[in-house]
Protein backbone atom coordinates (compact mmCIF):
# COMPACT_ATOMS: atom_id res chain seq x y z
CA UNK A 1 0.00 0.00 0.00
CA UNK A 2 2.90 2.33 0.70
CA UNK A 3 4.12 1.80 -2.89
CA UNK A 4 0.69 2.80 -4.20
CA UNK A 5 0.77 5.94 -2.01
CA UNK A 6 4.20 6.88 -3.38
CA UNK A 7 3.05 6.35 -6.99
CA UNK A 8 -0.05 8.51 -6.41
CA UNK A 9 1.98 11.32 -4.83
CA UNK A 10 4.63 11.30 -7.57
CA UNK A 11 1.92 11.38 -10.27
CA UNK A 12 0.23 14.25 -8.44
CA UNK A 13 3.43 16.26 -8.18
CA UNK A 14 4.01 15.61 -11.91
CA UNK A 15 0.63 17.15 -12.72
CA UNK A 16 1.35 20.09 -10.40
CA UNK A 17 4.64 20.60 -12.29
CA UNK A 18 2.83 20.50 -15.65
CA UNK A 19 0.46 23.13 -14.33
CA UNK A 20 3.21 25.43 -13.03
CA UNK A 21 5.32 25.23 -16.19
CA UNK A 22 2.21 25.73 -18.32
CA UNK A 23 1.44 28.89 -16.35
CA UNK A 24 4.90 30.20 -17.27
CA UNK A 25 5.07 29.02 -20.89
CA UNK A 26 1.56 29.55 -22.26
CA UNK A 27 1.03 32.72 -24.31
CA UNK A 28 -2.29 34.22 -23.14
CA UNK A 29 -4.83 34.25 -20.34
CA UNK A 30 -7.19 31.58 -21.69
CA UNK A 31 -4.50 28.91 -22.04
CA UNK A 32 -3.18 29.72 -18.57
CA UNK A 33 -6.67 29.46 -17.07
CA UNK A 34 -7.09 26.13 -18.88
CA UNK A 35 -3.91 24.61 -17.45
CA UNK A 36 -4.58 25.82 -13.90
CA UNK A 37 -8.21 24.65 -13.91
CA UNK A 38 -7.57 21.11 -15.16
CA UNK A 39 -4.05 19.94 -14.40
CA UNK A 40 -3.83 21.66 -11.01
CA UNK A 41 -7.09 20.10 -9.77
CA UNK A 42 -5.97 16.60 -10.76
CA UNK A 43 -2.56 17.10 -9.14
CA UNK A 44 -4.02 18.26 -5.81
CA UNK A 45 -6.51 15.37 -5.77
CA UNK A 46 -3.82 12.78 -6.59
CA UNK A 47 -1.40 13.96 -3.88
CA UNK A 48 -4.08 14.03 -1.17
CA UNK A 49 -5.35 10.60 -2.30
CA UNK A 50 -1.78 9.35 -1.86
CA UNK A 51 -1.76 10.65 1.71
CA UNK A 52 -5.13 8.92 2.33
CA UNK A 53 -3.77 5.61 1.02
CA UNK A 54 -0.66 5.98 3.17
CA UNK A 55 -2.70 6.42 6.36
CA UNK A 56 -4.93 3.45 5.40
CA UNK A 57 -8.28 4.58 6.69
CA UNK A 58 -7.60 5.93 10.14
CA UNK A 59 -9.83 8.55 11.73
CA UNK A 60 -8.55 11.39 9.51
CA UNK A 61 -9.68 9.79 6.25
CA UNK A 62 -13.06 11.56 6.19
CA UNK A 63 -11.49 15.01 6.51
CA UNK A 64 -9.01 14.29 3.73
CA UNK A 65 -11.74 12.90 1.44
CA UNK A 66 -13.77 16.06 2.06
CA UNK A 67 -10.67 18.10 1.17
CA UNK A 68 -10.25 16.17 -2.13
CA UNK A 69 -13.93 16.64 -3.02
CA UNK A 70 -13.78 20.35 -2.22
CA UNK A 71 -10.55 20.87 -4.18
CA UNK A 72 -12.01 19.10 -7.23
CA UNK A 73 -15.11 21.33 -7.16
CA UNK A 74 -13.73 24.68 -5.97
CA UNK A 75 -10.63 25.13 -8.14
CA UNK A 76 -12.34 24.83 -11.56
CA UNK A 77 -15.24 26.94 -10.30
CA UNK A 78 -12.93 29.77 -9.23
CA UNK A 79 -11.00 29.70 -12.52
CA UNK A 80 -14.29 29.64 -14.44
CA UNK A 81 -15.45 32.78 -12.61
CA UNK A 82 -12.19 34.54 -13.54
CA UNK A 83 -12.35 33.40 -17.19
CA UNK A 84 -15.96 34.57 -17.50
CA UNK A 85 -15.10 37.97 -16.03
CA UNK A 86 -12.14 38.23 -18.42
CA UNK A 87 -14.36 37.41 -21.40
CA UNK A 88 -16.80 40.14 -20.34
CA UNK A 89 -13.93 42.68 -20.46
CA UNK A 90 -14.12 42.18 -24.28
CA UNK A 91 -10.42 41.35 -24.56
CA UNK A 92 -9.79 39.68 -27.95
CA UNK A 93 -9.22 35.92 -27.83
CA UNK A 94 -5.93 36.16 -29.78
CA UNK A 95 -3.82 39.00 -28.38
CA UNK A 96 -0.72 40.26 -30.15
CA UNK A 97 2.93 39.99 -29.15
CA UNK A 98 3.79 38.81 -25.67
CA UNK A 99 7.01 38.43 -23.77
CA UNK A 100 7.29 34.79 -24.86
CA UNK A 101 7.60 35.98 -28.46
CA UNK A 102 4.51 34.10 -29.60
CA UNK A 103 1.71 35.93 -31.37
CA UNK A 104 -1.47 34.54 -29.80
CA UNK A 105 -2.72 30.99 -29.77
CA UNK A 106 -2.71 30.52 -33.55
CA UNK A 107 0.94 31.51 -33.94
CA UNK A 108 1.84 29.40 -30.94
CA UNK A 109 0.21 26.31 -32.50
CA UNK A 110 2.19 27.00 -35.68
CA UNK A 111 5.46 27.10 -33.72
CA UNK A 112 4.90 23.66 -32.17
CA UNK A 113 3.79 22.06 -35.47
CA UNK A 114 4.69 24.03 -38.62
CA UNK A 115 3.50 21.20 -40.89
CA UNK A 116 -0.02 21.27 -39.44
CA UNK A 117 -2.53 20.88 -42.25
CA UNK A 118 -4.90 23.85 -41.91
CA UNK A 119 -7.78 24.01 -44.41
CA UNK A 120 -7.58 27.15 -46.56
CA UNK A 121 -10.69 29.31 -46.65
CA UNK A 122 -13.02 28.40 -49.52
CA UNK A 123 -12.88 31.30 -52.08
CA UNK A 124 -16.48 30.65 -53.19
CA UNK A 125 -17.65 31.13 -49.59
CA UNK A 126 -15.69 34.41 -49.30
CA UNK A 127 -17.27 35.72 -52.51
CA UNK A 128 -20.74 34.79 -51.26
CA UNK A 129 -20.15 36.64 -47.97
CA UNK A 130 -18.86 39.73 -49.80
CA UNK A 131 -21.96 39.72 -52.02
CA UNK A 132 -24.19 39.44 -48.94
CA UNK A 133 -22.37 42.37 -47.24
CA UNK A 134 -22.83 44.51 -50.38
CA UNK A 135 -26.55 43.78 -50.64
CA UNK A 136 -27.25 44.65 -46.98
CA UNK A 137 -25.05 47.61 -45.90
CA UNK A 138 -27.22 48.44 -42.86
CA UNK A 139 -26.52 45.00 -41.42
CA UNK A 140 -22.81 45.78 -41.35
CA UNK A 141 -23.52 49.11 -39.64
CA UNK A 142 -25.53 47.32 -36.93
CA UNK A 143 -22.64 44.92 -36.39
CA UNK A 144 -20.18 47.83 -36.08
CA UNK A 145 -22.53 49.52 -33.58
CA UNK A 146 -22.64 46.34 -31.54
CA UNK A 147 -18.87 46.04 -31.56
CA UNK A 148 -18.45 49.67 -30.41
CA UNK A 149 -21.09 49.63 -27.71
CA UNK A 150 -20.38 50.91 -24.20
CA UNK A 151 -19.15 48.02 -22.03
CA UNK A 152 -20.75 49.55 -18.91
CA UNK A 153 -24.22 48.91 -20.39
CA UNK A 154 -24.08 45.42 -18.99
CA UNK A 155 -22.68 42.00 -19.79
CA UNK A 156 -22.37 40.79 -23.37
CA UNK A 157 -25.48 38.69 -24.01
CA UNK A 158 -24.34 37.84 -27.53
CA UNK A 159 -27.30 39.54 -29.29
CA UNK A 160 -26.85 41.94 -32.19
CA UNK A 161 -29.26 44.94 -31.88
CA UNK A 162 -31.98 45.05 -34.54
Amino acid sequence: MTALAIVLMVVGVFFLAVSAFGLIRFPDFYTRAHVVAKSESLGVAAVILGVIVYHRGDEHTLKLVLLVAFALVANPTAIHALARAHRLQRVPVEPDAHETGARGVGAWVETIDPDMDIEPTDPAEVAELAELAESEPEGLERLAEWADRDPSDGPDDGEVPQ
Partner: protein
Amino acid sequence: MEAFFIAMAFAVGLLLLIGLHRVWDGPTVFDRLVAVALVTANSLVILVLVSSALGRVDTVVDIAIAYALLAFVLPLALGKYYEIHPGEGPPEDERP
Protein backbone atom coordinates in the same frame (compact mmCIF):
# COMPACT_ATOMS: atom_id res chain seq x y z
CA MET B 1 8.75 7.91 4.82
CA GLU B 2 8.86 11.27 6.61
CA ALA B 3 11.83 12.21 4.40
CA PHE B 4 9.75 11.39 1.32
CA PHE B 5 6.93 13.67 2.50
CA ILE B 6 9.37 16.49 3.15
CA ALA B 7 10.99 16.01 -0.28
CA MET B 8 7.58 16.14 -1.99
CA ALA B 9 6.72 19.29 0.00
CA PHE B 10 9.97 20.92 -1.17
CA ALA B 11 9.22 20.01 -4.80
CA VAL B 12 5.73 21.55 -4.53
CA GLY B 13 7.30 24.60 -2.89
CA LEU B 14 9.56 25.10 -5.91
CA LEU B 15 6.47 24.91 -8.18
CA LEU B 16 4.82 27.50 -5.91
CA LEU B 17 7.76 29.84 -6.53
CA ILE B 18 7.28 29.36 -10.29
CA GLY B 19 3.64 30.40 -9.83
CA LEU B 20 4.79 33.46 -7.87
CA HIS B 21 6.81 34.52 -10.91
CA ARG B 22 3.57 34.78 -12.89
CA VAL B 23 1.99 36.77 -10.05
CA TRP B 24 4.91 39.22 -10.25
CA ASP B 25 5.10 39.35 -14.05
CA GLY B 26 1.43 39.70 -14.97
CA PRO B 27 0.93 41.08 -17.58
CA THR B 28 -2.78 41.52 -16.78
CA VAL B 29 -4.72 41.44 -13.52
CA PHE B 30 -6.41 38.19 -14.56
CA ASP B 31 -3.09 36.43 -15.15
CA ARG B 32 -2.09 37.42 -11.62
CA LEU B 33 -5.38 36.11 -10.19
CA VAL B 34 -5.05 32.73 -11.96
CA ALA B 35 -1.48 32.47 -10.66
CA VAL B 36 -2.74 33.23 -7.13
CA ALA B 37 -5.21 30.33 -7.51
CA LEU B 38 -2.28 28.05 -8.39
CA VAL B 39 -0.22 29.31 -5.43
CA THR B 40 -3.06 28.67 -2.95
CA ALA B 41 -3.67 25.15 -4.32
CA ASN B 42 0.04 24.37 -4.04
CA SER B 43 0.21 25.64 -0.46
CA LEU B 44 -2.80 23.43 0.36
CA VAL B 45 -0.82 20.42 -0.88
CA ILE B 46 2.21 21.53 1.16
CA LEU B 47 0.06 21.75 4.31
CA VAL B 48 -1.26 18.18 3.83
CA LEU B 49 2.23 16.78 3.12
CA VAL B 50 3.79 18.54 6.11
CA SER B 51 0.96 17.34 8.37
CA SER B 52 1.80 13.73 7.46
CA ALA B 53 5.54 14.32 7.87
CA LEU B 54 5.09 15.79 11.36
CA GLY B 55 2.53 13.16 12.41
CA ARG B 56 0.02 15.90 13.29
CA VAL B 57 -2.62 15.09 10.68
CA ASP B 58 -5.55 15.96 12.98
CA THR B 59 -4.72 19.61 13.60
CA VAL B 60 -2.98 20.59 10.36
CA VAL B 61 -5.70 19.12 8.12
CA ASP B 62 -8.26 21.30 9.90
CA ILE B 63 -6.10 24.30 9.02
CA ALA B 64 -5.89 23.05 5.41
CA ILE B 65 -9.70 22.80 5.14
CA ALA B 66 -10.18 26.34 6.46
CA TYR B 67 -7.47 27.59 4.10
CA ALA B 68 -9.12 25.92 1.09
CA LEU B 69 -12.48 27.52 1.97
CA LEU B 70 -10.92 30.99 2.34
CA ALA B 71 -8.85 30.68 -0.85
CA PHE B 72 -12.00 29.74 -2.79
CA VAL B 73 -13.67 33.07 -1.92
CA LEU B 74 -11.06 35.43 -3.46
CA PRO B 75 -11.30 34.51 -7.19
CA LEU B 76 -15.09 34.15 -6.96
CA ALA B 77 -15.51 37.59 -5.37
CA LEU B 78 -13.12 39.36 -7.76
CA GLY B 79 -14.56 37.58 -10.80
CA LYS B 80 -18.06 38.62 -9.78
CA TYR B 81 -16.90 42.20 -9.19
CA TYR B 82 -15.39 42.46 -12.67
CA GLU B 83 -18.57 40.96 -14.14
CA ILE B 84 -20.75 43.62 -12.51
CA HIS B 85 -18.31 46.46 -13.37
CA PRO B 86 -16.85 45.47 -16.77
CA GLY B 87 -15.44 48.96 -17.40
CA GLU B 88 -13.40 48.92 -14.17
CA GLY B 89 -11.34 45.88 -15.11
CA PRO B 90 -7.63 46.00 -15.81
CA PRO B 91 -6.39 49.42 -16.95
CA GLU B 92 -5.97 49.87 -20.70
CA ASP B 93 -2.17 49.69 -20.69
CA GLU B 94 -2.31 46.36 -18.87
CA ARG B 95 -4.42 44.69 -21.56
CA PRO B 96 -2.54 42.16 -23.67
